[in-house]
């Protein structure tokens, strides 16, 4: 498939509300080349995602899925092209951008002496302070991911799949309008992948615009979003 084309899923399996016409995410002919080695990390790619839509990034290892998410998250500058979210250039140093966009690209650092609940509560506190809302966000997120009973555990006591869901909880506890997820299905069993799909669809119904890079056919089918197939590894 040509890298500059997108394939949209016309069917809306999630039965989401009709998205507005304006694209929230606008990626125009973006490519990334390593400054050190000259290797192409992401071939020229165009992507538009409207409000309340899910875009699924598919492709082989090394095809640039993570790089594309990093560009959208403002963590990697594109070598060519432009990228805008809500009509503004992405810049993760800009607090206004950070208020709009949440990202899980790899696992976040964890503090060995904080419990799962402490971790989630701390991230929640940075958004809601000490308000009732902070507590509610923490509990709701833990419950949504089936973590209520695991809240008192420390990170080193979690299985690899639980650690993955824990990382997801740290992102979901905060407010966002755009959610970027890099292979969130890693290390999850089929039941947890189904749970993950439900969580993504819930956020979509709430109006979030979501971009997910995945190798999971099950997840891709369940969230049934617009699919962008990136060409093979450079």
């Amino acid at each position: 498939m040509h890298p500059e084309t997108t394939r949209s899923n016309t069917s809306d399996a999630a039965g989401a509300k009709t998205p507005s016409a304006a694209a929230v995410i606008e990626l125009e002919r973006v490519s990334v080349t390593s400054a050190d080695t000259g290797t192409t990390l992401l071939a020229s790619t165009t992507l538009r995602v409207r409000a309340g839509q899910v875009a699924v990034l598919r492709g082989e290892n090394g095809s640039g899925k993570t790089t594309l998410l990093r560009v959208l998250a403002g963590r990697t500058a594109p070598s060519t092209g432009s990228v805008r979210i809500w009509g503004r250039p992405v810049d993760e140093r800009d607090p206004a951008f950070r208020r709009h966009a949440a990202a899980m690209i790899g696992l976040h650092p964890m503090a060995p002496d904080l419990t799962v609940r402490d971790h989630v509560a701390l991230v929640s506190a940075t958004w809601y302070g000490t308000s009732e809302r902070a507590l509610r966000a923490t509990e709701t997120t833990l419950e949504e991911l089936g973590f209520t009973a695991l809240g008192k555990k420390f990170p080193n006591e979690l299985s690899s799949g639980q650690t993955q869901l824990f990382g997801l909880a740290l992102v979901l506890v905060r407010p966002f309008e755009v959610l970027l997820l890099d292979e969130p299905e890693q290390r999850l069993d089929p039941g947890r992948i189904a749970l993950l799909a439900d969580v993504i669809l819930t956020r979509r119904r709430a109006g979030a615009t979501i971009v997910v890079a995945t190798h999971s056919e099950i997840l891709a089918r369940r969230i049934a979003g617009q699919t962008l197939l990136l060409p093979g590894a450079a």
Partner: protein
Amino acid sequence: MSTPQLQAAIAIWRARKNRTGGDRVSLAYLLLMVAAIAMAPVIRALWLGSTSTAGLMLLTADQAPDAVSSLTALIWSSALLLGRLRGPALLPPFLLYAVANSGMKRSLALRRPVIQAAAWASLLSVSVAGFSSAALLTSGHAGILGILGFLGAALTAGIIGALLALVGQALPRTATCIGIGIIAVASLGGTSPRSSPFLPWAWAGAAYPVEGAGAECALLPLAGLTALALVLIVFTSRMLNSLNFHQLGSQAAKWDAVVTFSSTLDFSLAATVYRAGPRFGSRIRAVRTCSHLAMTFLVRDAIGLLRTPVRLVVALGMTIASGVLLSTASITASSAVLPATGAALVLYLATGVLGQGLQHAAHVAADYPLYGISDRTLVVYHALFPFFVSALLVSATVVACSAGSVGVLGTPVLETLALVVLILLTRLGAALKGPLPPRLLTPIETPAGDLSIVAQLAWAFGELLLAILAGMTAAIIPLTPVPALVMIVYVTIIAAVRWRKRR
């Protein structure tokens, strides 16, 4: 988003280590004892040294203000360069992740650690300045007003140092240029307050309380330093807001690793955290088919090191320096031990880079077999490169430096070979060392208290001690080779024991 969110986050962070009243008393007692036992004697010795005739001669010398300027230039340039690796705007990794990715400005989220860094830098700076000032005051060589001016300059210089580290963190390339520029100008003589009145680091020297000078002498330099500090403070928010999370996260993770490794006295692992990764030569094949497998490993180690050229150049420079020191030892036979010890220490550090393959072989040997050759053969093959490079380079340097000075070159070359073998065996032992054995954590009760820390420090710095002993025994080879032979047997036994326990 404002401070309530930050305060709430920090409250949760601090609550993870809720100390009881007993814990606090115990901590206070511990700090008091460390201050009384470890710090007080050092401070007393420094005070006696400063107030002695020789000490006061140094403090009242004409060059003292120039020395203060040079020191300030060195500290500021170091701050600029070190800020690139570990800046003051840093928090523990998870707290950093939480606050730096929240909706609050980074100038707000990271303000606290910068203020703390500036406070610590100022405290250190004022303490050092206060020490020399007190010595000058009690001996009547300076007036109270002049000293107050100097302490003010020290306080401001400390703040500037911390903020220059922030410049290094926020603007690494600019900081490198400025840092190198400061070193260059200062080295070319730009340190004298009289001849360089426009150089900021010379203002610190100009505020030094020389005899007969009044407080007015310190006013102008103090005003200059204050103005510079204010300029940096004005730009602090902008610099903090320009920091990107990739860089912040990387610095925080590295620093966290250094603290973790250092707290378990694993300094060799801590040193690898800031090791530069390969960036060049990926198109050159490191593994080639050679006539003998040993040659394949030799070429592989050589090309592997070429991929980090700065480290290679530094290691080769240190190896040559080791040769120079060793030749000095052979020329000055009567006081050979000191330069030979220096040569051994420098060579030990150099082989940390040159013996990278040896380290890899030790790691592989400690796990399930990976290569189709025995662990022993693997170690021998990886030892070839550091052995030949260090033996040839040190010998060549010794021969070049000693030519014409000594009649027989055989002895210095023999010293060189003995030293290289000793150091490489020590390196192999270090590579096979593993983590701190838990038995060393058990208390060693003595009338002077628990001395388990001595055993832990001996374990942590054992290889450096062995390197020192290697240098000393190599230095006396012309007199008797027995100590060197005993050392070779000893480090071989250590390496062999660790080899047997490697898995």
